[in-house]
């Protein structure tokens, strides 16, 4: 019996782009009760404020809508976490769906991170309008993505698997005029 290996979309080698550690992802839908129970199982408080991410260690919860969160944890914790969350959430109506492979995580970093994104993303990515810890779904030209500002010049991006090549290809075109 062969053991299958995971193959992720390849990222171009750029000084402003890096992959992120393998990740387990869950889409959580549910009301305040579900959010509280999920937070307890995850070990952090789910943000109530719109478009904010809370993280504890390598785990994070990203507010995507009034009843919608993306939960992120290291890949290795995936199966156990799924069981913990399912058990914790059992008493209340909710939806917990594994979307670990639906999208990939990558980081745009460095002094041109927001400049690169603003080539195709219409949001105001200034620090005042998009502070550290903010997250939201948006678009980059013709693809959807999820942006999470982890630092002034670090954006964590979640993008659907098959759009990765389009997204990084466009960014590479945009970056052509950058020095170095």
């Amino acid at each position, binding site marked *: *019996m*062969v*053991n*299958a*290996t*995971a*193959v*992720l979309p390849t990222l171009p080698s750029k000084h402003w782009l890096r992959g992120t550690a393998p990740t387990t992802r869950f*889409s959580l*839908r*549910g009301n305040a009760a579900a959010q509280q129970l999920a937070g307890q199982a995850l070990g952090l408080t789910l943000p109530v404020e719109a478009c904010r991410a809370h993280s504890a260690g390598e785990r994070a919860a990203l507010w995507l809508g009034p*009843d919608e969160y993306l939960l992120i944890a290291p890949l290795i914790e995936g199966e156990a976490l799924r069981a913990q969350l399912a058990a914790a959430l059992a008493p209340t*109506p*909710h*939806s*917990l*769906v*594994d*979307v*670990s*492979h*639906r*999208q990939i995580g990558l980081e745009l970093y460095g002094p041109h991170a927001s400049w690169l994104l*603003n*080539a*195709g*993303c*219409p*949001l*105001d990515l*200034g620090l005042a*309008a998009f502070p550290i810890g903010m997250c939201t779904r948006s678009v980059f*030209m*013709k*693809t959807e993505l999820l942006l999470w500002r982890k630092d002034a010049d670090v954006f964590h991006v979640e993008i*659907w*698997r*098959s*759009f990765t*090549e*389009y997204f990084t*290809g*466009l960014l590479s*075109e*945009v970056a*052509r*005029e950058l020095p170095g």
Partner: protein
Amino acid sequence: MSQCRTETGGRIDRSRKLSFTFDGVQLYGVQGDTLASALLANGVHLVGRSFKYHRPRGFLGAGTEEPNALVRVIRDSARSTPNVRATSVELYDGLIAESQNRWPSLKFDVGAINDALSPLLPAGFYYKTFMWPRSAWHKLYEPNIRAAAGLGRAPEGADPDSYAQRFAHCDVLVIGAGPAGLAAAQTAARTGAHVMLCDEQAEFGGSLLDDPEALIDGQPSAQWLQGVIADLKARPNVTLLQRTTAFGYFPHNLIGLNERVTEHLSAPHQNLPRERLWQVRATEVVLATGAIERPLVFPGNDRPGIMLASAARTYLNRYGVRVGKRAVIVAGCDAAYAAALDLKAAGITIAAICDVRPSADGPAAARARAAGLAITTNTTILGTRGRLRVQSVRLGHLEISGSIRPGVTVACDTVLMSGGYTPTVHLYSQSRGKLRFDSTSHVFVPGTSAERERSAGACKGIDGLHAVLADGAAQGLSAAAATGFAGSPRHYTVVATETSGIGIPGALPQPGKTPPAKAFVDFQNDVTSKDLALATREGFESIEHIKRFTTTGMATDQGRTSGMNALGIIAKDFGREIPSIGLTTFRMPYTPTSFGILAGYARGDLFDPVRRTAAHDSAAALGAVFEDVGMWKRAWYFPKSSEDMHAAVERECLAVRNGVGMFDASTLGKIEVVGPDAATFLNRFYVNNWANLAVGRTRYGILLRDDGFVYDDGVIARIADDRFHVTTTTGGAARVFALMEDYLQTEWPDLKVWITSTTEQWSVVAVQGPRSRDVIAKLVTDIDISHNAMPHMSVANGRICGIPMMLFRVSFTGELGFEVNVPAHYGKAVWDALYEAGREFGITPYGTEAMHVLRAEKGYIIVGQETDGTATPDDVGLTWAIGKTKPDFLGKRAIARPAMTATGRKQLVGLLTLDPQVQLEEGAQVIATPKQPVPMTLIGHVTSSYMSSVLGHSIALAMIKDGRARIGETLYVPMPDGDIPVKVTAPVFYDAEGVRLNG
């Protein structure tokens, strides 16, 4: 350097010579020149031929307003741009420019025959002339008009340059960096607000660049300008954009900017984009777009050497170029005197100053008199002479009686016109702001704003440097305050000759009742005052109609220099006030804008996302030919060495029927429906009954729109009591998800159920054929895949190659089949493993084409192929799927309407040609009796048609009126070579009993 260039002065660098060619002649300019100023420095005034009459034309203006000097600029063999205004082209070393609309040469142009024929070519002549004979339109008129139409030649090859795009936000966007814009930007910037300042020119400064004598706060204007720009540059909250035209004002303060990044460079770096589109969302906008001088309308006002007074001043003060040696100044506005004074100081003879007004008493006129210049008032121009350059003007004197007494002819090589200033309200008007007519200055100025925007300076009719600066600062401060940034007012002291911009709209007085020929109003479209008079005589009253009849204002300069004069002439003709004539619409773009920036990065492979499945590379390695399905690349067929598509598809189909095939089904849409009300939701959404679907079982679902027509289909699996895995068609994934979300949010918000797209979470390999179980049995663990444990239409969780798998027992081929679902990152590994495991059974990868044939042999429909948005479930033979006992579902009421069950509806049937080798065309029509005359009575059409290798017979699916009642009949498919007889059958051609599903 020619004697046209002054020895000192201007904002050019005389030490940096630049070589360029115009119509093949090598010339020299200097750094800081525009193509226009460099040509004038070389004494070149003749630069183009007019559009309709091919009249020789020179420079009218010095900037964006230029209607005449349209040239082709050629950078190299791959890069040329037609119809650029020479006044807006920055000179670089090696620039190549050509004149347009002339043949064989600029000086001798055959097309100038039109000028001699002009009495035969009045406005609207083409509406009247080319009507008869009717047959001549296609053969004679249209091709010839097409050949004569248009200006310039479009480049032929692909554009080798790149174009960038960018979104930006700011508190205050200031458009225009003349004195008003600079004052606004600086005042706003000092409050701490984020300010963007853009200007279309190479240098910030606007009118200040033409006015070196003015003193601001005790400094010469150039020094003041330098200080302001340095201050703005040093501020981190300020973005400065030179060479950037605000071309469009879109709703909610979204402004389109066109930045020309490399156009001015001799050797641009290959990594730089040629131009950049900025989409700026500004909280507040300050329009400081200035004003444009109007020409005067008199006979022969278009000869080379006749230009705007402001342009002559710009060429002199900014570029150090004397536009001639002997000038006649025609004044309808005091600004003419400022030009006269500057030109005289530069050594140009002022042959005459003719002021059409009864008196000239402004401070500038007084200074002109003091300088010894003679001014004659009440004077008009009756005509000009000079073929390729003006040589003289003939004056006329307005008598108190109203008549005109012919005056002397004055020799000259330059005529400067000043008809008054028109505020540039294009962007304001684009923003849906309401214009107001100012009866003192006879121009339209901004009235009531529609956006969070304010105008500053000359663009709202303010005259004089001091007033313009003060207004700019006040508007900058108020814009910043509106975004929450407070600051203190700014005051300026100014020493300058302040002239009023008020002028006279319309044509100069002429003797006689009929307007003279060749008094041009719109220079670019060759519209004369006579054309406008003709339009009013023909009964046109609305300016919008007159515009279309005469084409005045319809050229690429959008009537910048002609609009107010046209209105003035028409108003006078009707004896009405200008506001009652109306105003035409200002449309974007403000200046011509390249397609390049609109396309931006979206070209080639990046035009649209190209989505590839996880196993794409493996399929490619097996020789797959791909087809586009939506944005996806799907394996179409897998030809071996010399096979054509037909042979490959035949082999792939037979392999599935006789052995085993594998197919990448990953692109199917997948939606996880979860929550205690999941079954209730699906019951309302799909036609089927889901309440009685057991966990671990699947069912083929049909989705209707509320109009009762089939919208999508797919297999739906019950994973748990409260969890369903819904599949959709590849193309329907996004719209089905959106429709579900729509109903959940707007119709059934009470349901406790949520949907999550999992299309990309799962890679799906369909393993189909009698040996499919043998293949997967080698790799699958933790699961019993025997027929009894896992019957047709079941689902189970297990492992494959050690990783979690959701296994479906389903078939879209009619054979025993499984669909292996694994998390997508494992998709390639599992595809490869299945291929290896299947080799001993001759596993054959098959593509979408074979899949289509296999499903057609079984009569399985494809939504969008058999259905066209007007098919009910019954039409396509799917009534069996409807949950009869359900109280309601989406589309239930609609399909109960009498028309939806009436006879005469098209129904899905099979068609077999009498000759098994004849394959029907998809889309072909079907008729009941042969040899019908046109128009035939059409009773249906072919929806799918293939050669079935397993049957040795072509097969077709068709939608035929009352088709099920016609089974057994012979119908006909009319084709160019004759009618093809076909036998109507049930839509299932192969294994009608379905025994093969059981392996």
